[in-house]
Structure formats: C-alpha cells, structure tokens
C-alpha cells in the first residue's frame, strides 16, 4: 500500500487514561495531525491534541440577535407600520388594530415574543452551527475502515495519526502505537 492510499494509522485503546497517555506520547514524538475518536468526550484531550476552543458561541450570538430584531420588526410593522413600507407586489400590508385603547406598538407587551424568537433562532443556530462546523452529515469517513471502528461508539478509544502529517511515516507510527500497548493497530485506507 502506498502512502497516498492510506488515510493514516489507527490504534485502539481500552480506557480514556490509556488514550490520553498515548496522545501525549504521540505529540511528544512530533506528530501534529492527530485525531482521537471516543465514545464520550474525554476531558483534557483538546489540550493534548492542540484543538482550539469552539467558535460556536459567536454564531449563536448573531443568530440570537437576528431573532430579537425580526421579532421586534414583526410586531412593530404588522401593528403600527407604514402601509407603503414594503413593495406592493409582496401584497403585504400592516393592519393596525386598536384594542382596549392600547398603543399600536410598545416595548412592554412585545417582550415575551421577542424573547421567544431570540431563543428560537439561537437554538437553531446552535444546532445547525454545530452540525455545520463538524461538516456533518458525512456518511463516509476513512476511520470507518478501521476494523475496531464500531467500538468507537461502544468502549474503545481510538487515536489516528493522519497521512497529512509532515512527519507521517506509516511504519514508524505503527511501531509507536505498538510500543504504547494499543489493543489494535491498523493502517486505514483513504
């Protein structure tokens, strides 16, 4: 198998501690393109692998403020807007209704709906932002070629040194994992 055809070298470990230990060793050897695949989030792995904190929060702020703005515009425009504010072809017109002598638009009664739409759009941004940042859905990935990969969602903790690593050498990586007492080591196809 040539180096081009393989995605990397995968090794399975049986505990989070073993994975963390192996990840530290691999990083110490100078490998930089390393990914861990685990059944549940392992605390401390981000620092070892050099993964920066998630940027998801920034997206959510933008999504949430969009919700706030839309909600206020909706409530203000439909109840107290200018009939000529939107092009006629949309056939959308505001419809002011005086109810109980209340003002056509005020901030106080607008708060509940503004709050709800802020939360709604924030939640949508959170979920779709997370899916997007993770580049999901992606139904094929080379790690699924690893014979132990079904156990990633069960009880094994997998470390992959990827072929994009400048120091990548399949045989050296295999040897390193074997020395770390991995449960299984395998070169996985792209």
């Amino acid at each position: 198998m040539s180096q081009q055809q393989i995605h990397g070298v995968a090794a399975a470990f049986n505990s989070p501690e073993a994975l963390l230990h192996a990840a530290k060793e691999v990083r110490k050897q100078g490998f930089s393109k390393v990914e861990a695949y685990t059944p549940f989030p392992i605390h401390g792995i981000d620092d070892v692998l050099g993964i920066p904190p998630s940027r998801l929060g920034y997206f959510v702020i933008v999504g949430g403020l969009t919700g706030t703005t839309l909600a206020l515009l909706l409530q203000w425009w439909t109840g107290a807007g200018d009939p000529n504010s939107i092009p006629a072809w949309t056939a959308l017109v505001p419809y002011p209704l005086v109810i109980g002598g209340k003002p056509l638009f005020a901030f106080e009664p607008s708060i509940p709906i503004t709050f709800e739409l802020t939360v709604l759009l924030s939640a949508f941004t959170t979920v779709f932002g997370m899916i997007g940042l993770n580049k999901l859905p992606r139904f094929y990935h080379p790690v699924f070629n690893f014979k132990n990969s079904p156990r990633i969602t069960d009880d094994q903790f997998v470390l992959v040194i990827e072929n994009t690593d400048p120091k990548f050498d399949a045989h050296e990586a295999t040897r390193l994992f074997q020395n770390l007492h991995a449960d299984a080591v395998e070169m996985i196809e792209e």
Partner: protein
Amino acid sequence: MADFALNPEMVDKVTPRLVKGNSTYKSVTDDVSRIVETKTPREWWIAFSLSVAVALMMVGMLAYLVAFGIGTWGNNSPVGWAWDITNFVWWIGIGHAGTLISAILFLFRQKWRTSINRAAEAMTLFAVAAAAQYPLFHTGRPWRAIYWLFPVPNTDLNMWQNYRSPLEWDVFAVSTYGTVSLLFWYVGLIPDLATLRDRASGVRAYIYGIFSLGWRGAARHWRHYEMAYMILAGLSTPLVLSVHTIVSFDFAVSILPGWHTTIFPPYFVAGAIFSGFAMVITLMTVARWALKLEHLITIKHLENMCKVILATGMIVGYAYGTEFFIAWYSGNPYELFTFVNRAFGPYWWAYWSMISCNVLVPQIFWFKKCRTSVPIMFIASIFINIGMWFERFVIIATSLHRDYLPGSWGYFKPTMVDICTFIGTMGLFMTLFLLFIRFLPVIAISEVKGVLAQEDQVAKHGHGAHH
C-alpha cells in the same frame, strides 16, 4: 501505618454510585441497546395496542368536535374555558420536568440527571404534543389555525395577530418550547444513534446511520458538540421558566378575581416542575422495572426526584396560602369571595382534593423510607398528578363560575366528549412514549459512560485526589 484510604463500600454509603453493578462501558452500551435490539416483547404489543386504541378514541372525539362544534364540550357561559385549558396547562406543566432535568440540572452539574434525562426529554415532547391538541382544536377549524395563530400572510383573516395578547404570546412560547426541546433531544441522541448504527445491520443500520449524520466521535466534533449542548442548556433554562410564566399570563393578565395576581408566574413554574417530576416518577418506576434498568436508574435517582417533589410541593403549598392571605389582606371583597368560594363553595371537593394531593401527600417524602420505596413513591406520584390536574381545574372553573352578577352564576359539568378527549390524550402520550422506548435508546448512553469514567476515577484514587 494505618491505612486511611476509603474503601468503595464506605464511599458508596456516603455518596451512592450512580452507575451500579460493576458496569463497564461495554455493559452500559449492551444494557441500553438490548432494549431496542431484542424481539418486540408481547407485553409491549399489549400496552401499545391499548394505547393506540385510546389515542384513536381521541381522534374520534376530535373529529366529532370538528363536525358538531365546541358546544360538544361542556364549556358554556359563564365557564367559557374549562377542561380544554385545564388539560392544556396540565400537559404543558408535565413537560417542564424534562427540560429541568436536561437543562437546569446540567448547568448545576448534577450528574444524577444522566440516567433519566433522555426519557424525561421524550416525555416533554410527548406532553407538549398532547397539550397542543387543545388550543389547536379549540379553534374549531384546526386546518386554518395556522393563519390565526402564526403570522402567515393569508386571505383567510386579512389581518395580523394581536401581539399584545397573552394568548398570542402563548402561541410563540409553546411552539418555541416544543421546537427547542426537540432540537435538544435530537442533539443528545446523535452519539447514541451512532452506537445503535454500529451494532445494527441491514435497514436498521441505514436508518440509524442517516439520523446519526455519520457521527464518528472525533475529538474535534465533541468540542463543538459539548459547546452546543451547553448553549442549548443555557437557552432552555430561561425558556422553560418563560413558558409557564407566559401560560400563567393567560390568566394573570386578565382582570378576573382569582386570576389577576402577580404570584402566578413563579407559582405556575413551581407547580409545573412539581407535576412533571411526579410524571417522571410514574413513568420511570415502571420503565426501570420493565426494561431491567435498576442498576442505571438507581434508588438514588428516584430519591433525588422525591426531594425535588417535596421542595416544589412546599412552594406550591406556600403559594396556596399566600393567595388566600392576599385575598383577605387586599381588602377586595370580590377577590376574597372568589377564594372563600373556592374552598367552601360548590367546588369545595375539587379544592380539598388539590390540597390533599399537592400539600399533604408530598410530606411523606420527609422520611427516607418513603423516598426510597418504589411502590410508595409510585402511588404518591399518581396522587400528585391528580392533584395538579385539580389545581388547574380549581383555578379555572372556580374563578369563572361565579362572577359579579349572581344571576349569571353557573356550574360547569364536563360532557362525555370532554372526558373521552382527555383520556384520549393520555393514549396519544403513551403511544408516543412506547414507540420511543421501542426504537430509541431510553438512556443517554454516552453521557452515562462519562459519569462512569468519573466514578471509576474516584473509586480508583479516592475522593479529592483530582481537585
């Protein structure tokens, strides 16, 4: 030198383990996945057919309602709102425990939530689905309700919603709540669906595969995932408080004696959590026994829920007292009349059922024996479910049935359609819940493993070693 290290049994006495019985990562996966992988048990089919039959009764009743009109319900002047809104608020309230467990307890880092959050969130969704039937069908023409409830441009009304009305706030609150709960639930399910995918074959593997989005547990994915989960918890926490607050505005913003009180928002939220936890206990005591999950949903989990019930039950009891006190202290004769009428008027039986079920029954949870006895807590939870239904009925019916003019006083009686529709919504709820336990992991597998890893660390190195 004497050995001061704590042995596991001693630790277990002080802080019982949340994952019992020598569980490993593998056994947690097996125990939870087994439920959806084994051949459908006959008991499930019996329960399911029964639930579907009851749910079909609801469908029939709603069809009858659409055909003959709202008059087939017992609502009539002076009680224009009766079982419909009572049942709506009851169901929505039940849902609140699911969000409390999944969001608020997550932010407070209460690890005991992990075994029960999945089922409780499912309960939230199905309770919201049951609740939604009432406002939808109270419109009489549910297929046109989208134009009346949401700002969808149309030629049906030719006007927009009244955003100054609490009923319109409620539309936004409940639909946002349902949507966000669904998103939260789904995000939690993704890694567990991947677990089921990796164990399944054939069509099942495809279906679980599609819904798990190709999840592979990469560390870079978990980082965004954990952030998303935390943000959703942070969003759901104020959301769940807002939902029952806004539900209470349906009443509190009106000027009717008995409804027009500022105590309603916190009182409704406490009541919602109270009734929701009771429903979680009702469901989980049965489910953990039927699905053989006693080592994952332990007595410790149930005991904690009993404590929440005791605390929120006391808040609700305090609110009953405050309402009465303010009715007298305000000096408003109409307000006082409404409350005296509640307790000693024609609906006295509903009021005292409410007091007995919601204030007296939870007091048994002061005793550890009751908090740790499954049959006792099951029976108590049923009483609380009934009590909380009566609470909403008392607030709604007793405030309406005697207004300022004695000539227009009345007495609400439910019709058969009222009763059968309500029983039918329980069938809908149970149908959805049974489908859930048949096809989806009832316990958050990946989260329980995270707790197991931490507890193993503690057991290995003793308390405090990692602080």
